[in-house]
């Protein structure tokens, strides 16, 4: 079976989305919209302090039956989480605190009441006695000798440390040009517009626990819930209804979810917890929080040689099940060489426990930080040697002729044309015109800058890659159950989860392509462990590669059987049969015949006497799929941005933004463009707006949207998207994932654009978000260093 197809028919069609109708009607069903008779609400008592020993929990006397501590939940297993490596120190995360709290916001007790308001009233009266311990809030200081420890039995605060040494380190150390910089990417939240949520009840008819969960992967969560509660998996059903965004933030088993599932059994009535925004910001999945101290080295002619230095990731107080955030440091380190012919990499990494909410995945995982670091370093190197950053980038980037290319970080870039990508971005942004404008002074005193940043996005990586990461669960395949009904309509059940990406539409396009029927005849089902085959959910830009591939395979298997039956019904040679436009066609020796696929479906489902002798009835298959090479395929692109910066206020306005991107074969260009635009909006949030700072006592200082700034319509520009298309060789149709790429490069491109605006003084916008204060301070510091009055 060929892996690569030329895009035809439904593949590549700008098909409007099948899932829009229910949302436009206001008839979608999110977890908070589930209504079950007898439902009661849950609120949590949360730790007010960042770190301490829990000495006692005093319930209000008249409401004690409504308040549940860990001990009240029954037998709950606290699951080990994080990679399965002897060197990884375990920090299990209980659904409700036991003897210790390790971050402000940690769940301590659950309260059940008729309304959420009443539950919060009771929660306010629960008294928690805590002996406070010093809070660990700085992940670099946390590694100093004598630092307060989070887990007494650990030798230090590192979950894991490692040193990556690849290539010719000595040559890098001896290189004539060395540029050292520090970078910070501060902590943020994932901010799905729908927070997390869970509704759980024990179904007495089926004798099973039903958990409605806003999640990116119902099957994996079922495994976690079953293990946590000590239930066999066939007694747990997880349903993800409409999910209002995920972005990584709904891909870990969280304490509230285990607690509410346990309460459903304990209480004997349905219970519900809907995360509010403050809970989201203080206690949901946090992201980024990277610190870099790096040196890039080069020859005098600009040939880049090596990257060396330290990477710290502040992973927070616990490891989230199943894998925590522990791909974060290794991914950051391995992505530091970027797309360049860098020959030496020496990076020490620390993944550190601190008294902050646990870190998890967020769109782009680790790469926004790595991209920010390497792409800023390339620009700084260019300034150091008096070259244009664009030219230095172009000089060192891997060429088309060199692909496939294995970087010193150990990643193998597959197909593409990176030089063409750079050039396309330069042309899209109109660099010549921008430089002209830049050379003239602006009437409002602002400075103009233009920046470029290249990113790559590993997608569709399977068993080989996840085994390397020592995952507890290896998401090496996806599955599809395809069933054609007696009228020729089709239901496809998959193990991935749509939370806005348009799977209902793109999977239907793939199946329509393979089955020769209209997508309107195809329904996609996901998000219910009882009705879909095992799968790992949607994350890591994997769905189109894995589930798209599984759908293609299932579709082809169905098509083969349809053709056999069709040939039999038409008394034609099966070798001459093909399906197209809803019909089975037979053509040989100038004789043409055809019949509707529905006729075949009818025979297969309800008229088995019409089938070939010995053929089993039904048109139903379950396929699993993993790509030929499970190390992944790489989407990539170049972001280009023009900014205007007020040096005094530090306010940055994005005047223009363009990207050249390549995600291989595109199933639906409308959806791909929207993923790019939406990803960039989130990347702009990381770059300029979003941050959860902490006080020295470990208190989170952005707990509402008044303090945590999510970019709005005036902050996100219209992004102009240019396309290159180099199909992957090892995936169905040549697809590559596209979900995360948009979010990776904005911090880098905006940092470079801001630095470009102040290149003459060498301002260093090296910490995200690049707030007005940080930008203005960076400019003032550069001016001061040059002796210029600010």
């Amino acid at each position, binding site marked *: 079976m060929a892996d690569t197809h030329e895009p035809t028919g439904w593949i590549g069609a700008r098909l*409007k*989305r099948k*899932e*829009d*109708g*229910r*949302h*436009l*009607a*206001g*008839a*979608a*069903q*999110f977890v*908070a*919209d589930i*209504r079950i008779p007898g439902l009661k609400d849950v609120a949590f008592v949360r730790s007010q302090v960042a770190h301490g020993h829990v000495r006692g929990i005093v319930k209000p006397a008249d409401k004690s039956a409504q308040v549940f501590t860990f001990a009240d939940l029954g037998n709950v297993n606290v699951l080990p989480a994080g990679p399965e490596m002897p060197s990884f120190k375990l920090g299990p995360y209980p659904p409700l605190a036991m003897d210790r709290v390790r971050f402000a916001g940690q769940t301590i007790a659950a309260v059940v009441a008729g*309304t959420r*308001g009443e539950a919060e009233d009771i929660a306010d009266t629960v008294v928690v006695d805590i002996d406070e311990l010093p809070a660990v809030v700085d992940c670099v200081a946390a590694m100093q000798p004598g630092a307060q420890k989070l887990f007494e039995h650990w030798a230090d605060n590192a979950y894991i440390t490692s040193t990556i040494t690849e290539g010719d380190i000595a040559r890098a150390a001896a290189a004539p040009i060395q540029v050292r910089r520090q970078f910070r990417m501060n902590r943020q939240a994932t*901010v*799905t*517009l*729908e*927070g997390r949520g869970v509704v759980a009840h024990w179904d007495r008819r089926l004798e099973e626990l039903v958990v409605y969960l806003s999640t990116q992967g119902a099957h994996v969560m079922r495994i976690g819930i079953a293990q946590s509660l000590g239930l066999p998996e066939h007694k747990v059903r997880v349903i993800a209804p*409409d*999910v*209002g*965004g995920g*972005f990584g933030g709904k891909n870990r088993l969280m304490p509230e979810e285990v607690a509410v599932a346990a309460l459903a059994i304990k209480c004997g009535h349905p219970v519900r917890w*809907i995360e*509010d*925004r403050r809970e989201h910001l203080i206690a949901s999945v946090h992201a980024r929080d990277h610190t870099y101290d790096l040196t890039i080295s080069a020859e005098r002619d600009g040939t880049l040689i090596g990257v060396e230095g330290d990477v710290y990731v502040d992973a927070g107080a616990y490891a989230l099940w199943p894998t925590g955030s522990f791909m974060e440091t290794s991914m950051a380190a391995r992505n530091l060489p970027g797309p360049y012919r860098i020959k030496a990499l020496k990076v020490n990494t620390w993944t550190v426990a601190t008294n902050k909410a646990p870190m998890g995945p967020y769109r782009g995982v680790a790469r926004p930080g790595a991209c920010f670091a390497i792409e800023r370093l390339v620009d700084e190197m260019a300034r150091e040697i008096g070259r244009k950053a664009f030219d230095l980038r172009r000089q060192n980037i891997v060429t088309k002729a060199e692909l496939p290319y294995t970087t010193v970080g150990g990643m193998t870039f597959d197909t593409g044309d990176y030089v063409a990508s750079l050039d396309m971005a330069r042309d899209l942004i109109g660099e010549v015109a921008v430089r002209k404008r830049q050379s003239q002074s602006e009437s409002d005193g602002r400075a103009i800058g233009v920046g470029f940043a290249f990113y790559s996005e590993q997608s569709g990586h399977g068993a080989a890659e996840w085994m390397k990461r020592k995952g507890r669960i290896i998401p090496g395949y996806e599955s599809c159950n395809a069933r054609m009904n007696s009228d020729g309509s089709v239901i496809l059940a998959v193990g991935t989860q749509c*939370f*806005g*990406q*348009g799977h209902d539409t793109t999977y239907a396009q793939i199946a329509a392509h393979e089955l020769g029927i209209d997508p309107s005849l195809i329904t996609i089902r996901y998000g219910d462990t009882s009705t879909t085959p095992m799968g790992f959910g949607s994350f890591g830009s994997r769905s189109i590669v894995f589930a798209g591939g599984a759908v293609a395979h299932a579709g082809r298997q169905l098509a083969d059987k349809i053709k056999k039956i069709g040939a039999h019904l038409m008394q034609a040679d099966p070798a001459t049969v093909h399906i197209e436009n809803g019909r089975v066609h037979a053509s040989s020796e100038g004789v043409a015949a055809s019949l509707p696929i529905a006729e075949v479906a009818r025979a297969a489902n309800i008229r088995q006497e019409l089938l070939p002798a010995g053929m089993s009835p039904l048109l139903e298959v379950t396929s699993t799929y993993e790509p030929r090479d499970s190390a992944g395929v790489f989407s990539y692109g170049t972001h280009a941005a023009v900014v205007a910066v007020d040096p005094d206020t530090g306010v940055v306005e994005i005047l223009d933004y363009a990207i050249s991107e390549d995600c291989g074969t595109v199933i639906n260009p*409308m*959806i791909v463009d*929207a993923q790019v*635009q*939406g*990803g*960039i*909006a*989130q990347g702009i949030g990381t770059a300029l707006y979003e941050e959860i700072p902490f006080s020295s006592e470990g208190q989170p200082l952005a707990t*509402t*949207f*008044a303090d945590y700034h*999510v970019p*709005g*319509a*005036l902050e*996100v520009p*219209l*992004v102009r998207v240019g396309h290159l298309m180099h199909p992957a060789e090892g995936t169905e149709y040549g697809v590559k994932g596209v979900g995360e790429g*948009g979010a990776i490069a904005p911090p880098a491109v905006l940092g470079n654009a801001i630095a470009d605006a102040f290149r003459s003084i060498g301002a260093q916008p090296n910490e995200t978000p690049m707030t007005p204060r940080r930008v203005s301070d960076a400019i003032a510091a550069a001016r001061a260093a040059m002796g210029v009055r600010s």
Partner: protein
Amino acid sequence: MKAKVSLVLNGESVSAEVEPRETLADFIRERQGLTATHLGCEHGVCGACTVEVEGQTTRSCLTLAVRADGMHVKTLEGLAADPAMMVLKRWFHDEHALQCGFCTPGMLITARDILSRHRAPDAGTIRKELSGQLCRCTGYANIVKAIEAAGRELAGA
């Protein structure tokens, strides 16, 4: 204490005894079972809960149900047959102006209000007027395009 609230919700008179602390959003969602109105922040910033009260866009999370006593309230469910809303929905579909759909009801109600106050507004006007509606998926571009197209169509341009 409890207070009686009677209001006209999507053209139907409804009344209930509520606690004064109950928001209009909870009144609509929990008491009346209309779940098009979404809660994204409950402190008035995200705009997902936007409804119409007396013809004016309103954060239902910032409105106490008792304060809507005697008023006309419309949610997305009640605007199904509204001609401008029908045009907007068609353009939202055509321009791929929604992904996860959580912000969509608030976006649509706000968009309808924008078009009622601005004839065929340009993208800049739409962006300014949309600044109180957060979307985490789309990056806004297609929402702006959809409203712009609907505005042109409704203006007969």
